[in-house]
């Protein structure tokens, strides 16, 4: 029996989900999220992220495997354990005829909070999530973004130690999205946060650990920095206004540049191994200036997470095919 005070926030072993003997949503996955981590779960549509989350909160039962939350087994009736969790589903649905205040009161009462605490927390959450103006409005009239914000408020009502948020930026405008990512960062200082999202930039900005789910399998789980290092390739991307092919012609004989690619308006230079990035960048900028081409933007490895994600998916696809051949 693990020590419930030191056990990881989430420890899932051999987690498998098969729906009605027809569809495999998750083939055995192991997932460990340490206490205090901000963990991002990423993967394409249908990868099994929502199924995994619904099992973590006890809405669905694993076909095989076990889920331990803070060292205790999660199951459908683990209400004491759920007191310590705040869950936000994808595109949450609420009682349409209730107002946000009524709904938050209900959530607070179910969580065992006294009336004063329910009232004060509701007010704080509605204010912080920009729902004060809609506090008396029926939830049925809410936009997707407002529903998501109300879902976030409801998930925080019981002041949980662990937050499990499935697509928390769904339906939000860029400002709302930034607010939510800032909120995740802020909440992550005092509690464990697990989020799933399609927006890799959000994960890059707030998460310190990441898991990649693909076709029901966890193909990577670990620190985000480690994942990025796997694809570090000293790539410089320049957005140019003009004919970049002239730069490519002159760069062909350049000793630092291994691979040059011009696809208007982007010039992509992949440096040879061990090429000093700062030196290469200054020389490249001088070359662009010599050719009289205007520079619009410059980027060196800004999409590392996306590249790492795509590379890992690609490796997995090839690996799957090869292992399939081997079995045959």
């Amino acid at each position: 029996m693990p020590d419930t005070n030191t056990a990881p926030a989430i420890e899932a072993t051999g987690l498998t989900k098969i729906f009605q003997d027809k569809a495999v949503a998750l083939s055995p996955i192991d997932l460990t999220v340490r206490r205090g981590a901000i963990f991002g779960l990423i993967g394409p549509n249908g990868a099994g992220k929502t199924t995994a989350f619904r099992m973590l909160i006890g809405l669905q039962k694993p076909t095989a495997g076990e889920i331990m939350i803070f060292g205790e087994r999660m199951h459908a009736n683990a209400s004491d354990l759920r007191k310590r969790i705040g869950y936000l589903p994808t595109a949450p649905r609420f009682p349409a005829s209730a107002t946000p205040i009524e709904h938050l009161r209900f959530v607070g009462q179910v969580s065992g909070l006294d009336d004063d605490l329910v009232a004060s927390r509701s007010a704080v959450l509605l204010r912080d999530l920009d729902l004060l103006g809609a506090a008396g409005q029926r939830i049925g009239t809410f936009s997707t973004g407002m529903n998501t914000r109300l879902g976030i408020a409801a998930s925080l009502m019981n002041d949980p130690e662990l937050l499990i948020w499935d697509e928390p930026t769904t339906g939000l405008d860029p400002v709302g999205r930034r607010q939510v990512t800032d909120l995740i960062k802020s909440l992550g200082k005092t509690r464990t946060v697990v989020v799933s999202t399609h927006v890799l930039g959000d994960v890059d900005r707030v998460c310190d650990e990441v898991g990649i789910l693909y076709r029901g399998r966890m193909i990577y789980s670990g620190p985000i920095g480690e994942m990025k290092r796997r694809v570090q390739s000293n790539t410089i991307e320049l957005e140019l206004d003009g004919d970049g092919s002239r730069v490519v012609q002159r760069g062909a004989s350049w000793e630092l540049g291994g691979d040059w690619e011009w696809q208007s308006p982007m010039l992509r230079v992949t440096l040879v191994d061990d090429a000093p990035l700062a030196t290469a960048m200054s020389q490249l900028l001088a070359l662009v200036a010599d050719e009289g081409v205007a520079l619009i933007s410059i980027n060196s490895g800004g999409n590392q997470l996306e590249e790492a994600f795509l590379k890992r998916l690609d490796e997995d696809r090839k690996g799957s095919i090869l292992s399939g051949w081997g079995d045959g």
Partner: protein
Amino acid sequence: MVAFTNVIPPMSMTALRALINAEVVAMQRSWLVRAWVVFALITSLLPVLMVTDETEYVSEVIGGWLGLYFIASAIIAAIIGAGSTAQDTDVAADTILTRAVTRWDYVNAKLLTRFACVIVVHAAATMPLLFFARRFGLDDATTVGLLMATIITGMMLLFVTALGVALGTVLRNMIAAVVIIMIVFTLQGFIFDFLNMEFLSSGAVIEMLPEMIRGELGDWQQTRIVLAFGLGTVALSAAASYAFDQREF
């Protein structure tokens, strides 16, 4: 931005109480329940008008009215029972079952509020009727007989409600559950007659009501009707709770 002290009071019946409160509010807002109350109260006045000229026997009038009232109310009880766990399951999953509640808390809150609703409407419709009918009609009724007829009709309604909850939970479809209940009630007379257990048929029980009100029905006959519908309600409630506990969201 958002910071609270991480203290949650110990819970006992907190979740169940909160769920029941929410269900009571939902039932008060339900147009079906409101229509049922109005229907029950208005129709309960009809037998009073019939007996005021003191030419009709109380047992026949009340027995007849209870039968008709049961048939109409059973349809409503089936709908409110079947809809309880078959409707708005997405909302339940997103907003309730992910909180500090057990599946049993949830389904028991549904059952208890629906049973309470049936009992309140039934009492509101029958109690004034019994008083006025005995006061103004040709009184061939016994007090125990009247109470038994009222209680047994109410128990049959609770049974239908529990059947609705159980079928709605298993089928996950309110309309299908209600249709099956109506088919079962149409065919039950033949089935129980064939099994020589006609006392389990609501049709047979309705026919016995005047006799019951006059105090002419044997104790054992009444006892086994009470036991059959009482135990049936308990069994269906347990089955609904178990089925809901096994359900995936």
